[in-house]
Every structure is written in C-alpha cells, then in structure tokens.
C-alpha cells in the first residue's frame, strides 16, 4: 500500500538509533510510566507506607528489640534482638496479671458477647426481614441505635445505674433506691459482656436479616413441593445457607470486642479486672515499649485471624449466592396473634439496649443525687450553673471553657482527618481502579486496609512508637494535634479507600475518556469530571469517618494529652475524676452528634447502615 502523496507508509527508521528497543522503550515510557495516575499510585503508596505500614511494622518489631530501660536486665545493647519481652509476658511471675488473665478475660467476654447477641439478634433479624411484625419499619431503625452510639456510653449508663460503694464517687440509682448491687452485677465480666453484646446485637440483626432478605424463597418452595415440612426446611435448607452470615457476624463481633477499650476501662479497671486492651493501655501509660508491643501484637494477631476467617467465609457465601436467583423474596410470614408478643419482645430489647441507658444518662445530668425522684433534686446546674461546690468543676458543663475547647478540638481535628481521609480515599480509588500499574494498585489497596486488622488502641501504640521521636520529614509529634489528625486519618483509611474504590469501580471510564477526546488533560479530567461526579461519594467518604472519629475513644485515649483533649478523652478524664453528671452530659453531646450524623448521612446518601457492614 502506498499513500496518495506517494510517501512510503512505513515511518523511516532512525538509522542512528543504537538499539532496536530504544524507541519501544521510549514508547513504553510515553504510554505507561508517564501516566499521572501511575505517579499518583506511587505517591500514595509511599505516603501510606509511611503513615500505616511503617508504624505497624515498628510496633511489632518493638516486641523483639531491647529498649533503653531493659539494657541492664537483658545485658544487651539497645535495639538488639531479644525474646525478653515475649518471655516476660508469657512465662514470668507477672505474666498471669499482665497477659494470661487479661487474655482469658478477653476471650470469655468475646465469646459471651457473641452468644448473647446471637440469641437476642438472630430472632430479631428474622422478625425484621421475613415477618409482618407490627412497627417493623420503626424497629429497623430503633434497634440499630445502640450501634450508632459509642459502646462505652452504655458502660457509663451502667455505672450510673448499678455502681456500688466499692469504688465511691457519686452514688448510683440502685444505691439511691436503697439496694446495693453486688460486685458481679456492678463491675467486671458480667456488665462488660452484656454491654458489648447489646452494642453488637445490631450486627447480627443487620447481617442475618440481610442474608434472610436476600434468601430466595423459591429455594424453600422447591423443598416444600418435594414434601419437606417447615422444620426440615429451616434445618436443612435455610440454616446451612444462613450459616456464613451468622459466622461472619460472630467473627466481626469477636474482632471488635477484642479491641474495645472504653467499656472494660470504665467497668473493669476500678476492680482491677483487665482485658488485653486495658492491659495494653497500662503498658503504654507506664512507657513499657516492649510489653506494649507484645500485647498489641497479640490483639493484632487475633484480629487478623478473625478477619481471615471472615473473609474465607464470605468467599464461601459468595459461592452460594451465585446459585440463587433473585426470585420471589418478599414473602413474609404472618405472625398472627404472635405479632403482639413479638413486637413486645422487640420493644423490650429496644428499651433495655437504648432507651434505659440513654434516659439514665440524660436524667443523671439534671439530678443532684442520681435516682432520687423528688422535685427539689432536679437542677440544671450541671449544665448551666455556676459556683458549684465541687472541686473538679465549679460551673455547669456548658459554661466550662475546657468543654468548648474539647468540642472545638473534636470538630476540627476529626473534621480535618476525615476530609483528608475522604479525599485520599477517592484518590486511592482512582489509583487502584485506573492506574495502568496493577501491582501498585493492589499494594495500595492492601496497605490502606491494614488498620482494619489493628484495633484502635494497638494502632495508637503503633503511632506512638513511630512518631514519638522524629522520623522522616516529621518532628516528634507526641502531644501535638498533628499526631491525632494523622492517626485518625490513617485509622479511617480502610473505610475511606473502600468507599473510593467502589465509587470509582461504579464509574465507567467513559466520562473521563469522553473528556480526553475533547482535549482535557489529566488534571482537568480529575477536577472537572471525576470529582464533581463523585461529589456524593466524597461527602459520604468524609462524613462516615467523621462520625466514627467523633465517637471513637480507644485510638485517641492514648494519643491525646490534656492540651489536646477531644470530647471523648475529656469525658473519660471526667469519669476518672468521678464527676458523673458532667461526664454524662459530655457523652450525651457525643451521642447526639453521632446519632444525627448517622441519620443525616443515611438521608444524604440514601444508603443503609447495613450496606457498610460485614466486610463488603
């Protein structure tokens, strides 16, 4: 073929080119390596290696390195390899107190919480998804309320109601009613288990309910036509297919209970009942870097194990899902005369798990002596009074500058961290979904997922070991706002990057390519096409980390100092001072922000809380 102008069709090969491949190499560079998306992916990779992988790696390696105070005892120089801390945690005279008993307590609490929340949650999940339960719509929000609020809120409510004279401080309602609760009811394993169970029951309701809702009723029909009875169908068809969702709920609860710090801190520590998280907190606050690393590593190990089990099960569940079609799923069981009883049961769960705790917290803040219902006992002094006769706080909480400073800190610190997480999440989404370098995208996806495996308190420990001394471009950060912002941001990256990745997966390449065709460069496509289209996802990607950051305690309790108090750490400081009314007031404020924030996001994104659950 020869073109009309008579030129040879083939481009004249440059005679001087020394190697045949140099042009091809140049071409590869032009088309792949110079793509800004690849550079973005590499940049993000470096950033998150520094902010996520680095701290976690340092923390774990702390367990095997000699630290300054132990140079004498180990006879080794600082930084040398040692198994001293592992041996000390597991086989020394103190190992019972710092490691084995907390481990056993943690396991018992986790298992207990799982059993209780399954027993309470599974029937409710069925009632909400497959029956004509009266008031179903209302319940499907009301029963999720405990999950929207921080778990330790309920621990505070519990102490408000049940604490006894063992620990002193403001008397509880029970004491005011003239009944002194026994220690097992007031503190330790029983209340911690119950509170975690009630807090995580919504997990079971949502996961099990969703699975039931997606269950194809045709599968039941097929069995019925073959002559199977109701019980046989439930046992042989429904339950086996529901098992993955149930086990998935269990592993999630296990992982969460493992890292939960606040509840055990409020209800366990006063009577010296420790779980791994509180034992870890003690190690951190007494500056035992090696012990901190061993305990944090143990929590991470169990966290990873449970997540791995969960992922495996979800994969198996996925295998089942492909078989069933979305047939007639809306079939509901008529509860008949049992409807009222079932509704009563649901109402009972709501009252116990949400209404009573919140009422107790709220009422306490307007009572001089908690639980005493006489007119002269009610006061607004704890909110707006002045010249109160206490040493901790001399005026109502709304007149206390520290409260407003903590509120402001919470808003701007968590706000900037969530803004950062939301934007970085979208950028991670772009890099993972669009970068021509697949491997960089894969690594990015995994690194940003890492904090999910590390409970907040262990992640905080990791941040201490990374940023308590100057590393890289940053100076020593302990005690600064910066360490809080970075830690909250990094801790929220699993959710933010997941949101970003799924948003970018749903956005086809077409809009960007169309912009390319009309002449838009990479930056223009990002700012004029991708970000405006992803506005909704971005808002959700900022709001969800914001809410979870506002109510989060275990991460910041390690990193915040009195000068950088957030609402949550301020509330805990008030608890430590035994100032019940004020701490309850602060907690109520947090609950309000968390609750309305969650409802607002659901409205805004037209999503359900359940969509964000269960490792989807």
């Amino acid at each position, binding site marked *: 073929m020869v073109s009309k102008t008579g030129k040879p069709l*083939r481009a004249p090969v440059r005679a001087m080119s020394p190697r045949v491949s140099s042009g091809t190499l140049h071409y590869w560079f032009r088309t792949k390596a110079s793509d800004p998306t690849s550079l973005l992916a590499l940049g993000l990779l470096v950033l998150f290696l520094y902010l996520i992988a680095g701290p976690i790696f340092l923390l774990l390696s702390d367990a095997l390195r000699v630290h300054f105070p132990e140079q004498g005892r180990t006879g080794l120089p600082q930084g040398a390899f040692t198994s001293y801390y592992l041996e000390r945690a597991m086989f020394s005279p103190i190992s019972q107190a710092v490691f084995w008993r907390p481990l056993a307590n943690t396991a018992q609490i986790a298992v207990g919480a799982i059993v209780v929340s399954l027993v309470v949650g599974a029937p409710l999940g069925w009632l909400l998804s497959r029956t004509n339960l009266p008031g179903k719509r209302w319940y499907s929000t009301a029963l999720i309320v405990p999950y929207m609020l921080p778990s330790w809120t309920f621990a505070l409510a519990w102490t408000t109601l049940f604490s006894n004279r063992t620990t002193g401080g403001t008397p509880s309602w029970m004491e005011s009613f003239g009944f002194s609760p026994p220690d097992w009811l007031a503190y330790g394993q029983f209340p911690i288990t119950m509170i975690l169970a009630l807090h995580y029951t919504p997990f079971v309701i949502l996961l099990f309910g969703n699975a039931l809702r997606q269950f194809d009723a045709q599968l039941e029909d097929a069995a019925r036509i073959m002559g199977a009875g109701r019980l046989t169908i439930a046992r042989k068809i429904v339950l086996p297919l529901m098992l993955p969702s149930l086990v998935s709920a269990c592993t999630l609860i296990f992982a969460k209970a493992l890292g939960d710090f606040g509840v055990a801190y409020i209800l366990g520590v006063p009577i010296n009942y420790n779980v791994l998280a509180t034992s870890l907190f003690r190690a951190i606050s007494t500056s035992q870097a090696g012990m901190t690393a061993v305990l944090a590593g143990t929590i991470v190990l169990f966290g990873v194990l449970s997540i791995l089990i969960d992922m495996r099960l979800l994969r198996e569940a996925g295998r089942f899902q492909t078989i069933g079609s979305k047939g007639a799923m809306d079939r509901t069981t008529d509860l008949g005369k049992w409807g009222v009883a079932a509704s009563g049961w649901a109402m009972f769960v709501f009252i116990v798990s949400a209404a009573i705790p919140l009422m107790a917290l709220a009422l306490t803040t307007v009572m001089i002596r908690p639980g005493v219902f006489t007119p002269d006992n009610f006061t607004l002094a704890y909110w707006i009074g002045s010249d109160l006769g206490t040493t901790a706080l001399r005026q109502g909480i709304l007149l206390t500058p520290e409260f407003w400073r903590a509120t402001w800190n919470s808003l701007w610190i968590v706000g900037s961290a969530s803004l950062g997480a939301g934007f970085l999440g979208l950028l991670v989404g772009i890099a993972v979904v669009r970068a021509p370098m697949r491997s960089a995208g894969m690594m990015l996806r995994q690194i940003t997922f890492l904090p999910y495996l590390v409970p907040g308190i262990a992640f905080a420990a990791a941040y201490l070991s990374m940023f308590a001394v100057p590393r890289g471009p940053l100076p020593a950060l302990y005690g600064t706002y910066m360490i809080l912002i970075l830690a909250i941001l990094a801790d929220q990256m699993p959710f933010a990057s997941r949101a970003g990745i799924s948003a970018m997966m749903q956005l086809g390449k077409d809009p960007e390519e169309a912009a390319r065709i009309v002449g838009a460069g990479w930056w223009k496509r990002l700012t004029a096409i991708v970000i405006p289209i992803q506005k909704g996802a971005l808002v959700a990607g900022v709001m969800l980390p914001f809410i979870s950051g506002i109510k989060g305690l275990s991460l910041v309790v390690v990193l915040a100092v009195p000068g950088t108090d957030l609402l949550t750490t301020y509330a805990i400081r008030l608890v430590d001072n035994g100032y019940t009314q004020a701490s309850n007031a602060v907690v109520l404020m947090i609950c309000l922000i968390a609750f309305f924030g969650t409802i607002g996001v659901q409205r805004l994104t037209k999503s359900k809380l359940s969509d964000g659950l269960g490792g989807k």
Partner: protein
Amino acid sequence: MPSIRLLHIEKSYSRSAPKAVEDLNLEIEDGDFLCLLGPSGCGKTTTLRMLAGLEDPTAGDIQIGDRMIVSVSGGICVPAEKRGLGLVFQSYALWPHMTVRENVEFGLKLHNMPRDERHAVADEVMSKLAIVQYADRYPNQLSGGQQQRVALARMLALKPDIILLDEPLSNLDAKLRLEMRAELKRIHREFGATIVFVTHDQWEAMTLASKIAVMSAGELQQLGTPDDIYQRPANRFVAEFVGSLPINVIALSGAEKATPLQAWMASVLVELGSPVNVECVGFRPEALKLSHCDAAASSQDLPDRLGTIIDILPTGGNWIIELSVDGEQIFAITGSAPDFASGDTIRLGLQARDLHLFDADGTRINDVQPVLTQV
C-alpha cells in the same frame, strides 16, 4: 482532509492471552464512511480505541494524513487529548453533572474559545441536531435518542475531521434507528468528515457504511463495499457472518459416504467444470429457487434436486422456508408468499452466479473459474 493508515498494528493485553489485534493493515481514505464489523471480541472496538488514543498498540504505526500519531518502534504516541478526533461512545458518556449546553461547550472551553463565540457554536450545533430546547436540562432528564443527539452535538461542536462512533445505533429502538441512520448520513455529507464506526450488527453496517472492514479474531478478513461483502465474501467466515439468515454451507468432504446435499453439490461442480481445491460450497437462502416439482427446469440452470418443505415461518414481509433434502436441513427465504404448504415436495434450483466456493483454508476461489466471474 486526511486519510488514516494503520500499519502492522498489534495489541495484546497480556503475554499469555491471544492478541486482541494482530498485524492489522488498513487504509481509510478521506471521506470514507467505514465500518469495522465483526462478532464481539474480534478486536474492532480495540482498533477504534487505538485510533482514538484510548488504547495503546503494542506494535505498529498509525498515521493520520502526514502526521504520525503512533509509532511503537519510533517512540511516538500522541495522547488522545491531542489527537483532535471526534468520538461518540456507545453509552454516550454524557457528563451527568453538566447540562446539555455545558456538555457541548466543555471542549470549546478547553480550547479557550471566548464565551459568546462558544454559545454561538453550541447553539448552531444543537439546533442542527434539534436539541436546542433541551440546552438547560441534565442528561438524565433526556430520552435515549436525545442523549445520543447530545453526544453527537458535543463531538461535532469541535468540528473534527475524523469522527469515530462506537456502536452508534445499538441502543436505540427500531424507529429511532432509522431516524439516527439518516442523521448520521446527513452529518457525513454536511461535515464532509471521515467517519469510522464499529458495530457487530450487520444491518447497521450495511445501511450506513460506504466501506466495511470485516474482522475476526483480531485479524482483518475483508475490506470492501457492502455489496462486495455480501455478494463476494472473501472467505467462509465473512460469508457466514454476513446475512440475516445464515448462508447454507455444504462441506464436500468429511462423511464416509456422500450425503444427499454433498452429492448434489458434487454434480453441480461437475457442471461447472470441476474446479480444483473446492472444499465447500455456499449459497444464500434467497439464491435457492423453489418451484413445483412438475415445473420444467430452465436449461441454463445447474442440476436441481427435490426437497420437502418442513415448515414455513412468516417473518412479516419475508417467508423463511425450512427444507429437508433426504433428511438434511437447509433454509430458503422468499420475498413473496410461497404457494406451497408443509409436506410438499418441491424442486430446488441454483444458478452458477449465486454459488460461493471456498478452499480448505476457507478462502474464496470463485475467481479462478471463468464461468463464475460474470456476476
């Protein structure tokens, strides 16, 4: 106006997978309305995207006019945003966060056209495509046909010399397809652009294109006018791919004992002077002449054969006739209502010019036979 040349273009997505496009050479002349036709996965869309710059070839050159836009060995790759081509996506790819006007003006804005001028150009294009009344709506407030007009307007506003279309009619219903077909032909005339489009739908290809490039498994099978493609398919693949009712193809070897159809074709080939190397014979359903078995055969015709009508399927305007020749199934189609009924025995006739002969590789060999070249 430039012509487009693709030279030894190759695209592979990974080392292990078969190449999406293999050694493709194609010259598209100035003013062509060229269709890349083929089944899904044949590499046609990849080819279009390589032209647009959305996909990078792994070997070969692409030249537009005198400008080399891709040369793998020469280290040249002009990015899509600098090629100045027009492309309409199959999904239309309208930007959901911009109004129709903003969509149309976006490219002009990028070229720093002043506001007033931009408005004027957009108004002109939108009124040409009869969407000016929707200028302030968002894409999700428009019907599919209107969305496609917006996509066309957005592309035309930049007045590209070369227009690329990805499955331009596939998302439209029957009535809109006709309308849009006329619209595209008008655009081709009025704008005088070279248009390349991709489709798997032969109706779309036949009715729109001035030339069709049939592709299969990453390779170009035939480049020619729609008539060429239909009446002189270059190989067995093209013959079988084109045609709304599949062509009847009878392989001559294979069975130990000749089947009735094989025997018939063998006698036909003897009549044609026994051309060598013929591996299979094809004839389109409409080439089969059906007559009552008592009617006399015309003397010019090739040997005929008796068959039985199994079923008659009216398709509205055409009648598909399922036939059995001693148990072997073939199809015929007529444009007028047949005066036969199921079970009738009828005479099947063929004419030499309607036969397509292929060799063992599936390549057309009619042209070696003088008697068959007079079409």
